[in-house]
């Protein structure tokens, strides 16, 4: 009788592809932000001079750990700031796809 009551749109057990797609996009973005954060703070805190860095020890030095915490905090601030700025600039989405396809 489910074809009378409820129907597809309300079916609590139907998979909504649009919802899955949004959740996957969100997950991809979180992973992307995390990977960029890791790599940015690595450049800032662990190897400010990649040419001279030869990894003489495998532990984080105390100063490196403190730097990572501050670097992460600043990265989150920049993340917020960039989001706000892109909204202000408006039409930012088009900037990335404005060559007419």
């Amino acid at each position, binding site marked *: 009788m489910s074809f009378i009551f409820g129907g597809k749109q309300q079916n609590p057990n139907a998979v909504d592809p649009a919802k899955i797609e949004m959740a996957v996009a969100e997950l991809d973005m979180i992973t992307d932000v995390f990977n960029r954060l890791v790599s940015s703070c690595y450049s*800032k805190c662990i190897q400010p001079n990649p040419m001279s860095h030869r990894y003489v020890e495998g532990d984080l030095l105390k100063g490196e750990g403190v730097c990572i915490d501050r670097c992460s905090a*600043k990265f989150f601030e920049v993340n917020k700031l960039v*989001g706000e700025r892109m909204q202000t600039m408006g039409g*930012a989405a088009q900037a*990335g796809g404005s060559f*007419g396809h």
Partner: protein
Amino acid sequence: MDFSQLNGPEQAQMTAVIEKKQMQDFMKLYTGLVERCFNACAQDFTSKALTTNETTCVQNCVDKFLKHSERVGARFGEYNAVCLMYYIP
């Protein structure tokens, strides 16, 4: 991009693909800008908060990059995309 060879249902499917891709491109533009402007502007790690200089730098960095992208996009549009494809061996 020439979709005239596609029939109706094929064009509908491509439209869905393009919409999905635009969302992904936008997210990549966003996270890429965060990384680019963070790397260019965040220099002082003696505190957790952005300094005034760093904040201004990030805002200018975003503005400048988007204006740059827009101008490149205009040149790219002029350059016929088909032309681009023609040279793929």
